[in-house]
Every structure is written in C-alpha cells, then in structure tokens.
C-alpha cells in the first residue's frame, strides 16, 4: 500500500513501509490491551480488509443534543412528537425535510449540501442501551457512557476535590476504541487513535477503551500537535536531537515498565488493575515512539498561541491535526470531543441571559412553545441554536473536506472512511435518547450506499414516533463495514429491540 501525494501537500512524502511491517507487528505489540477489551466481546478477529485499502473511522461527538421535537419513549412503543402548541417548542432543525430515502438535508446540515452524495442521515435510531438503563430514560451520566458503548452502565462513588460524587462507568468500550484496537491489531500504526477535544460544558467523556477505562482527550492544541505530529520527521537526514530524545524516552519507558511489573504480584485485585492499566498505556507510549521512527510526512503548522480555553479557534486546529494524522498514516481512528459550547462569539440572538451555564440555553426549548413562558423568544432561540449547531457541523465539515481532498484509490480518503457525528441526546432539553442525531459521511470503501436518508421511525402517525432500532445496530453495521463479522455490539438485553446490523445500509 502506497500513499499518494495530496494536492494540498505537494511535498508530502510516502509513509515508509506502511502496512506490511505494521501488520506483522500487530497482535504482539498490544498483547496487554486486547484482553481488556475482548473480554467483553469475545469475538475472533477478522481478516484485514479484502481490498487492502485501510479504512478510517472518525467520530465527532457534540455534547448536549440538538434542536428537535423528540420526547422520551420506550423502545418500540408508539409516542408523540412535540407539535409546539404547548410549552415546548416543536421544531426539528436536525431532521431531513423528506421522510423518504431521498435525502433532503435539514437546516443544521444545509452547510453540507455539496457533499450530500457522500452522507447518510439517520432518523428513528435510539440509544436503546441508554433508554433501557437511564433514570427517566435519559440522564447525563448514563447517556454519555452508553451512547458510543451501548454497554451496561455501573454507578460508582468517588471523591473529586474532596467532594463525594456518583459517577457512571460503562462495562465495555466505545465503538471507536473497539474498532481502534481491532484495527491496531491488524495494522499497528503509531497511534491506536487520535483523541482531541474542545472542552467546555459537558458531563464526562463518551469514549472508553474498555470497562471503566476512559479515554481522556487532549484539549490543548499545541500539546495535541506535539503528541500526535511532533515526532513525525519531515524527511531528509534524521534529526539528531529527535533521535536522542526518542532513545532517552524509550530507556525511561523501559525502566518505568520494569518497575510496574515488579509490583504486580504483591498487589490487591483492584490495585493490580490500576497497574495493568499503567503497563498497557506505557507500552502504547513505547509503541508510539518506535512506530514514529519510520514515518516521514509533512505536517501542517498550527497557531501555537491558541490556548485550550480559546474555544473559538481550538476546534479548527484539532480538525487539522486529525486530518494530518490520517493523511500521514499515523492512525486509522480519530475522535473529536466537542463540549456543549454556547458560542458566545457568534451573534447572541437570545442575549446574555441564556448563557448562565452551557446548556441552559438549550433548556429554553421547554419554555418557548406557543404556551411557554418565553414564547415570544422562540424565533430568537431557533436562530441561535441553528447558528450554534451549524458552527459545530462546520468542524465536521472541515474534517470531511480535508479527507475528501486527499486522493486515494479510485476516490478520496473520505470514501475509504466512516465519519460519525452524534450526541448523547437528541432533544437536549428533554434528555431524550430516542431518535438520536446521527449523521455519517464516507462509505467505508463503497460498503455503505450513501446519499440517503435512513428513516427507522416506524410510526404511521403524522407526529408519531416508534422505533425498535438502536445505535447498537448501527455500530454492528460499522463493524461489518470494517470487515468484522460481528453480529452484535454492546450489552445484550432482551429489551433492546433487535440485534444485528441496521438493515438497508449496504
């Protein structure tokens, strides 16, 4: 497998020895990481992708839900959508305007019109694992931990800053990390995944490597750059300072791992799990250094004056880092964790009053219907929501266009990718886990038939909702698209609706 030069980067060099070497290294390099994950799924590994083209998976996760008229429903039970005649607003800025397969983009997606043929927009897909387990069928902790994991959720008590609190943790990995570990076993690139974030208001991460094993994303753009792109050589003679730094780093990691291994036998069960996690992560750091030594690629320059708190500008840099990491063959999986940022730098149609706390602007959705306290402000609210959500969709678009500009095989890198955009809620104001906002781009090398609206809402009523389809079905389809013949992903409960892939995608 060779990488073509991209139009944007004429000096890009070819990733040396990509593929063959990496595949051989495969399983051995991650012997520790895999059992952690496989213990919850127990599936055999599939053969590498038949076409030989590496597929990529990218998740853009936008916390806080979207502007929609969905309520909370039991799986496969008929319910009503909001019509706006009561306290709650009744608009859906997410949904395609045509309920049929013909894709007519809704307001939030309208900025993606030129890429419509490469999109799949979903309606009527629930986070069934979340609906089943969450208090009120929708609570932040449960929804964040189940939306990408479809896993069983356990609540623990811990102390943060001296304060006791309850934390919900999943008993299995999120789809991105599950896939990342499988792909890494086939094809050990420097990074199992690239995990970056724009932090703000949110209720914890949705990304998990395995049971109780969260993924923390880097929120500082310069640090993200240094971590993921800082070790990449731009070609020519090896940089002696970089070589020395890498050698010292390997020596340190070797010594650190020796220390942790020596302690393993003497520890209690719980402490041993912590030590095992250190060893897994230290061995990944070691792998990164070694694997990066063989990579040559031109990387973008970023504005290093942008700090973590400068949310207006962090997102775009993170998108560029993701695109560069994929283009340079540093990873096959990338995640962008987008907090529920109320974009105060955009026009404040609703005024400062809505900015009390990140998402309370969104809670206004409950009170700006015809009989709501803020009925007069409904249009302001919709305007602001639309601008805000389109701004977030703009980051998705930035990655999409970055990948689409890189020729690969008979198409572009986007064609050999699956990009997923979702959130922990549909209607944030209701904490709804039904009719999740799900948008995908890229066809996984032609596996998915794109350019369609996949409508799983089975209700025949004009404002009705009924679905037995869950994100676990979609994730099973994604695993299948990557060549893994799984028949289910996540927790196995009879209330789920049905198991297996989501029909009609291929």
């Amino acid at each position, binding site marked *: 497998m060779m990488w073509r030069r991209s139009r944007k980067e004429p000096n890009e060099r070819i990733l040396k020895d990509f593929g063959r070497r990496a595949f051989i290294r495969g399983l051995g390099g991650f012997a520790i990481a895999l059992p952690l994950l496989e213990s919850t799924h127990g599936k055999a590994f599939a053969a590498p992708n038949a076409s030989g083209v590496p597929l990529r998976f990218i998740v853009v996760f936008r916390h806080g839900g979207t502007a929609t008229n969905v309520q909370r429903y039991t799986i496969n039970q008929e319910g009503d959508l909001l019509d706006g005649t009561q306290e709650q607003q009744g608009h859906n800025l997410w949904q395609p305007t045509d309920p049929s397969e013909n894709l007519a983009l809704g307001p939030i997606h309208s900025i993606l019109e030129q890429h419509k043929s490469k999109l799949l927009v979903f309606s009527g897909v629930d986070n069934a694992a979340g609906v089943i387990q969450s208090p009120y069928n929708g609570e932040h902790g449960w929804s964040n931990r189940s939306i990408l994991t479809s896993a069983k959720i356990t609540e623990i008590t811990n*102390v*943060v800053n001296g304060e006791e609190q309850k934390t919900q943790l999943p008993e299995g990995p999120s789809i991105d990390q599950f896939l990342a570990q499988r792909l890494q076993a086939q094809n050990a690139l420097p990074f199992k995944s690239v995990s970056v974030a724009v932090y*703000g208001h*949110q209720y914890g991460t949705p990304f998990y490597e395995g049971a109780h094993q969260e993924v923390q994303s880097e929120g500082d753009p310069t640090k993200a750059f240094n971590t993921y792109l800082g070790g990449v050589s731009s070609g020519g003679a090896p940089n002696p300072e970089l070589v020395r730094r890498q050698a*010292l780093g390997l020596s340190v*990691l070797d010594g650190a791992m020796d220390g942790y291994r020596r302690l393993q036998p003497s520890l209690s069960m719980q402490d041993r799990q912590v030590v095992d996690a250190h060893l897994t992560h230290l061995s990944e750091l070691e792998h990164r250094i070694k694997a990066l030594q063989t990579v040559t690629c031109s990387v973008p320059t970023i504005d290093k004056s942008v700090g973590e*708190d400068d949310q207006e500008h962090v997102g775009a840099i993170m998108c560029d880092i993701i695109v560069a990491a994929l283009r340079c063959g540093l990873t096959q999986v990338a995640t962008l964790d987008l907090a529920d940022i109320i974009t105060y730098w955009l026009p404040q149609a609703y005024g400062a009053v809505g900015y009390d706390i990140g998402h309370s602007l969104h809670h206004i959705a409950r009170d700006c219907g015809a009989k709501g306290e803020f009925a007069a402000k409904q249009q302001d609210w919709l305007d602001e929501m639309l601008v805000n959500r389109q701004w977030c969709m703009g980051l998705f678009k930035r990655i999409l266009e970055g990948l689409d500009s890189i020729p690969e095989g008979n198409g572009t890198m986007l064609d050999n990718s699956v990009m997923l955009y979702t959130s922990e809620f549909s209607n944030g104001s*209701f*904490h709804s886990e039904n009719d999740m906002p799900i948008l995908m781009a890229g066809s996984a090398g032609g596996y998915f038939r794109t350019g369609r609206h996949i409508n799983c809402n089975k209700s025949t009523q004009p404002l009705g909702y009924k679905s037995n389809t869950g994100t676990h079905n979609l994730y099973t389809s994604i695993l299948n698209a990557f060549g893994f013949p799984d028949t289910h992903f996540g927790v196995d409960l009879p209330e789920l609706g049905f198991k297996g892939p989501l029909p009609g995608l291929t």
Partner: protein
Amino acid sequence: MRTLRLASAWSALATLALAACLPGFERGSGSDKDKPSAGANSPIEGLPPGVTIDAAPVTMHRLTSDQYKHTVRDLLGLTDADVGPFDLPADEGPLPSQLMISKLDDYAAQLTALGAHRKAVPCDVAGAATDDCAKKFITDFGARAFRRPLTTDETTWLTGVYGAAKAQFNFADSIDVVTRVMLQSLQFVYVREEGEAFANLPAGLLKVTQYELATRLSYLLVDSMPDDALFKAAADKQLTVDGLRTHAKRLLEDPRARAKVVQFVSNWMEMQGTAKHVSIEEAVKDPKRFPLDNPALRIAVRKELNEFVGHVWDKGGSVNELFTSQEAYVNGPLAQLYGVPNGPQGDTWTWVTLPAQRAGLATRAAFLLVYANPDIPSPIRRGAAIWREFMCTTFPPPPPAAMDVKIAGGATDANGNPLAIRDTVIARTMQEQECAGCHGKINPAGFAFGHFDALGQWQDQEKGTSPEGKPYTANIDATGELVGSDVPGPIDGAAQFSAKLAASRQLKDCVASRFWTGSFGHPAADQEQSSLHYVQERLASSGSMREALLGIIESPAFLLMRKGAQ
C-alpha cells in the same frame, strides 16, 4: 471558559425536584458494642477513649492534580509558579487514562529538564560517571520521592535502570533517565500502604507504618509530601499519637495548611464550578443590570472569600465565625458592592465590618453570585446549595425536563399586582407532591436570601422584567426556615439565617464529614463510623476546624488499616 468535566447529575444541584427527599447524612451511631474500643486496655497508647478500634480496607490512590504539583514542587525545591502548568487530567474512575500516563511521562521529562534534581546528586553530573555517586543519589533522592527508604528490590531495579542508561548515554543523561523513571513510578504517583502487624490488635487490623503515617499526616494537612522533620520522626519511630499531634500542631501553622483549608472551603462551596453551575469568574451576569460587574471584580470576589477563610483559620478556625463573622477584606468596588460606608477606594484593600444584613460565608458575593441566574436571584439554587453544601443533605435529581429552569417574577395576580420571584417559585414547585417533597425544604432556605440580587448586592425591593418585557417592582419577603433540621423555626433575612446555620449541630457534623472525606479520599466506611463520630464530637465541642483535623489524626481510622481484597 474553564473546562467543566463533572460526572453526575445524581449529586446535582436540583432546581425542581421529583420525589420525597432523602436525608443524605446521619451522624455516626458509634454503637459498635461488640468491638473493642480505646481505653485503659487499648493496644495503642493515646487513642481517644470509647472509640471503636477499627479501620477501613485501603486501596492505593493516585495523588490528586494539586497533590502531584505540590509534591514535585517540594521534592525538587521548585515554586508554585514552576509547577503551575503540570495539571493532571481529571480521570473519573480509578483506572488511569492513556492521557494520564502520557502526561506523567511528559511531565517527568519536563521536570527533569529543569535540572533541579541534580542538586541532590552528590557529585558533578557533568564529570565522569561514578556508580557510587549514582547509587547514593538513587538511595537518597529515591527515599524522598517514594516517601520511605527504598526496598532492596527497588534499589536493584533503579540501579538497573541507571546501568542500562549509562550503557547508552552519558552520566548526566543516565541520572536524568532514572529520575524520570522515579517521577512516574507507582511509588511516587500513588499512595500505597502496606501497614504492619502489631500485638493485640483485633483480627485483620494492621498498624499504619511510621513512614506511611508521615505521608498520611502531610497530605492531610499540607497536601504535599512529608518534610525533613517528619521523615526524621518516622525514621526515629516518633509518630505515636502524641508524636503525630506534635507534628500536626507544627504543620497547622504552615502556610500550606492555610492554603489547603482555603482551597477546601472553596471546593466545598463549589466555587471552582461544576457541571451544574460555573465558577465565580465565569458566572455570566447581565452587564446592563450590573454596571459594577467586570472581570476585576470577580477576581476581587474570590480574593475576599479566600482572605476571609484564611483569616478565620488564622484566628483558630472557628466554624461559628465562618458563618457569622461580619469581617471582610475589601477593595473599593467590593466595598461598593457590599454597601460599606467610608470603605476603601480603588484597589486599596482593607478589613471592614459589613452592614448588619450580612454575616458569614453565605452572604458573601461569591456564594450569592454563583448561586443565581445571570439577571435575577435564584432561591432554588441558593436553597439547594445551603442544604447540600452546608447541611450535607442530598436530593434526588429532578426530572430532566425540570432542570435549569429560570423562575422569574413579574406575572400578575388576580388583582393585577406583580408576583415576586418567591410567589412564582411557590406556584411552580409546591403544587405537586412529587416536587413539594424537596422544595418544601429547598425554597424556604433560599427565600432568606431574597434581599441579595444576582451579583450579591443588597436590594430593598425586587426589580425585574415581566414575561411581557415590562419592568416591575415587588416587595421582598425574606422569611425562611431550615425545615426539618435541628434548628427549625422561622427567621427573617440572611443574617438571622446564618446564625441558625452556625448553631446547627447538623452543619458542624457536615463540616466534619467533609473534612473526613477530603482527608481520606473516601466517605467514612462502616468500620470508620465510630472514628468519624469522634471527629464530629470534637468539632462540635470545640467549634474549631483545627480540632476536627486533630481529631482525624488521633482516631483509630487514621492510625490503623485493613488490607484491600486480594
């Protein structure tokens, strides 16, 4: 904006609530009659009489981000400014994330690059390598980094690391490599306790070792590694109950202990922000309504809170003063906010006495502006915070459709008179039993603060905007009550309310249990209830936070331990 990454809504500040309220906290019963208690036949001298000799199983715990920074500061002789950038990620579960391990590795490299560890090398690192010198560095620096002398296996491991490095690199680099290994080792990053057997202890109980006690004491009081005097006391086996008390009293005078208590109170009041409300600095306020407000004012508000808590601590740490004192350290804008006559001007800071309407923590701008809407006060946020933070009463989460609802006044009653916020809150929360269960407690606590606007300024009358956008004025009824507490009965206004809080045993027990949880990193376990009860009694009888901390240190739960499940 600061990053807010908190986890749960179960512990959340609820603005409307669903079901009957659960008392989240009950005082320890101390009824472990079948277990031995300290007294004349106590196996360990100096334990308080009557307290059950028991302790909880230990699990190793990672240093908090603050503890990590303080520890590298004190280990390497750096300043707070030096270690400022070394924040650890906010991992939620016990397992460390990849980013955590990546940062620990990175920080070890950056800290080593500062070169401060080389002061501990007893020879010239730029000179020729001498293995004896390296070994002495490993032994001496290692004992401070690991907070106890190295075991034989650890010495073998670290001299091995050094030896392997030296085969590849020069002497200075090899010392750096072994330092970087130590700075991300389990022994450095975690507090892990082995304990030791001791005669006559009940089955399963171990004594915390001398070095482990030094570490417990130091993190508890100054949030950092033990100093030389504590290390020496541990080496000389001086850390008996008496010895611990002596060192505790010494450390209580350390500025780091003061800083820790100031931070503790700020965390306790959630002034750093959570997922449910933002920090002092980030709370959004309507600029049209509050011309006095600006970023400098917020910095001043935090400084005032911290100086107040520090001042109370310096004077003996009285909980009563914390809730009733009218002393405040203010500059010009704060004096204006508080309505202090003849206060300082500009950025001149001075101690003043606040007007009689204010007393203690709950009437400071910090509390009042964080627990409010951007434009109008929120009795529900304030009332829920009073119960949750100061009385340790938890409420079940409200239904999602009821969270973060701003309740404004200004609607009109049957006679056309404008309704106050108070009236609207009652109308919206007290009609259905599922809401009234909690709001019957939350609302009356919040109503007492009705005379303070959303920035914390005194208001004679409530001024707002009706749902139709018209300005209205309403009279304020600031009567309230701590319904169902140990200090029931109606009061009028926040100052009276604060006096009630200060008189409450439930509040003192709550403070003691917060100190406990903050000190041990977990709420008191079953085996620790009697020790907690002792600490609560100690705080209640003395009224002093200092005594509560000394009580923790002298309790069986501090001196003893059980091993975690194998």
